[in-house]
């Protein structure tokens, strides 16, 4: 008993009788199941509704099936509505989020490396400034960014969304911590003695050792940009440049206002909402390991 692997799970095993333990296990599972249902209800509703005709949305029960299976028709309506602008919005979201993810990961790694492995003038105040930026309300920056972009002729330009999204102060912090732990000073010195230049060392040694941390930062920025609404709403005017969040929200507001055949949009919006969350959910499921690793580093240090 005492020699068993110490584990938090064994804590209760040892202090309670087996019958009591099983009962509490069932009660806790039921309790958590309630919240799991709560987490899934809106998503189940979304899936069910995306299979209904617009008429069935009103005529049949929200958590039930429609009179006919209309998903394929809804998808086809979604993809052809307004000359297929939906796919354009999806494409924009993919481009903006991928660019932001890659840029944030590379820039945050380079900056984190400088903070972790070099002594230079201004290191401490600069790092404090970066950390302080984590606390700045992002939304407070959006209107001034828009006005500055207008002054520099970059208004209604996708770069106005992509470039600000490449800044990840939290990413710099995470990469600094990660590099301090994962990159050995002696390895760097050995490479320097062998005559390797600093850029070569960064590319050939550092980038290879910190790849998992970079994936975390890339994922954080990818998801943050995919979900962003306020910045593209203000910066981008042309429908052709807008990401999926802004596009769907515009349809939503149009449908809510009623007139102009807006109500026909309901089933299209619901189907669009379903399609738009699939890439993010897939990214989360595939890269779960990296995602949780990043949060651990952020919360312990």
């Amino acid at each position: 008993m005492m020699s068993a692997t110490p584990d938090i799970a064994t804590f209760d095993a040892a202090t309670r009788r087996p019958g009591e333990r099983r009962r509490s296990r069932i009660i806790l599972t039921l309790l958590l199941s309630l919240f799991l249902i709560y987490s899934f209800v809106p998503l189940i509703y979304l899936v069910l509704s995306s299979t209904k005709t617009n008429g069935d949305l009103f005529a049949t029960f929200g958590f039930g099936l429609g009179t006919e299976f209309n998903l394929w028709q809804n998808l086809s309506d979604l993809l052809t509505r307004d000359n297929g602008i939906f796919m354009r919005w999806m494409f924009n979201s993919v481009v903006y989020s991928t660019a932001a993810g890659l840029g944030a990961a590379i820039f945050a790694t380079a900056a984190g490396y400088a903070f972790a492995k070099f002594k230079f003038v201004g290191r401490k105040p600069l790092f404090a400034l970066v950390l302080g930026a984590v606390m700045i309300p992002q939304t407070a920056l959006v209107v001034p960014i828009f006005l500055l972009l207008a002054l520099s002729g970059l208004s209604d330009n996708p770069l106005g969304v992509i470039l600000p999204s490449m800044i990840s102060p939290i990413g710099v912090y995470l990469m600094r911590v990660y590099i301090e732990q994962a990159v050995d000073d002696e390895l760097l010195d050995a490479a320097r003695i062998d005559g390797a230049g600093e850029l070569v060392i960064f590319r050939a040694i550092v980038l290879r050792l910190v790849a998992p941390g970079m994936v975390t930062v890339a994922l954080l920025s990818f998801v943050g940009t995919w979900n962003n609404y306020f910045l593209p709403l203000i910066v981008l005017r042309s429908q052709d440049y807008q990401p999926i969040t802004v596009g769907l929200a515009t349809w939503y507001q149009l449908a809510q206002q009623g007139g102009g055949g807006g109500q026909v949009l309901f089933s299209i919006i619901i189907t669009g909402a379903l399609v738009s969350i699939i890439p993010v959910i897939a990214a989360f499921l595939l890269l779960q390991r990296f995602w949780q690793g990043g949060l651990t580093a952020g919360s312990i240090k």
Partner: protein
Amino acid sequence: MSNSPAATKRPGRSGGFASRKLAPYLFLTPFVLLFIAFIVAPLVYAFYMSLYRDTLVGGRHFAGAASYIKVTGDAKFWGGVWNLVLFGVVQVPIMLGLALLFAIVLDRGQVYAKGLFRLGFFLPYAVPSVIATIIWGYLYGPNFGPFTQIAKALSIPPPDFLSPGAMIFSLANMVTWEYAGYNMVIYYAALKAIPSDLAEASRIDGASSWQFARLIQLPLLWPAILLTIIFSINGTLQLFNEPYLMRSLASNTINSSYTPNLYAYSLATQGQQYGYAAAVSFVLGIVIAGASYIFTLITNRRRPGQ
């Protein structure tokens, strides 16, 4: 002269030393350039604008601190802050309390299907807040919302989720749905980092399961809890997407100053009052920083377990 200390150093390649000195600046350049362009410059520009007043006739005038004085007495701004304080006082403890409870239960493995819960709770975080608002908007809605349908089927008055009294709870529910799982993952990761022999040791010392959670786990989790509380204060006071979209469902309940960010947005986009909008954003930033700072001070004074 050849015996001087400098000469006995390793015969470095020319430029090797210099490049090592320059390297950190090189690595920092891309990040710092973007940081200056999209964080420092907008802040400076916003501050500059906040010192001027835009008038329809006569253009822009220097007004000094006039906008800031106006914000401190602006009932619309403080009404929005007050809405969010009420919102946060209810929503943040419920959300973080549930997240903490679930993280501890899952960490101890006292449930069946652990993996399913961990993933399922986190899933809503993958849904953009705009999409979450659209889905919940339909669920709440009087048109074809299932709760209205149930009430009609039972011939009872349908619940009005969009009334002035209920709206704050409807919004709180959406935010809890979006972020409870995210906070749970943070706590879960922090719990996993607690050395497992601590559980063994305190069991040998005769501590109960509850004592272990309160006296050992909670103090060790404290940095993570503090982080999530500060993130939550920050996020709450910046609330925009959810109320902005809910306006199209309930324009009577959510006015243009329902939250401070909604107010700043409508000042800038409808009123063209960029200077005043910037001042509102700055004061909001100060309120957020102040709230986080005061909270840190209070909690550092009485940390649990000390």
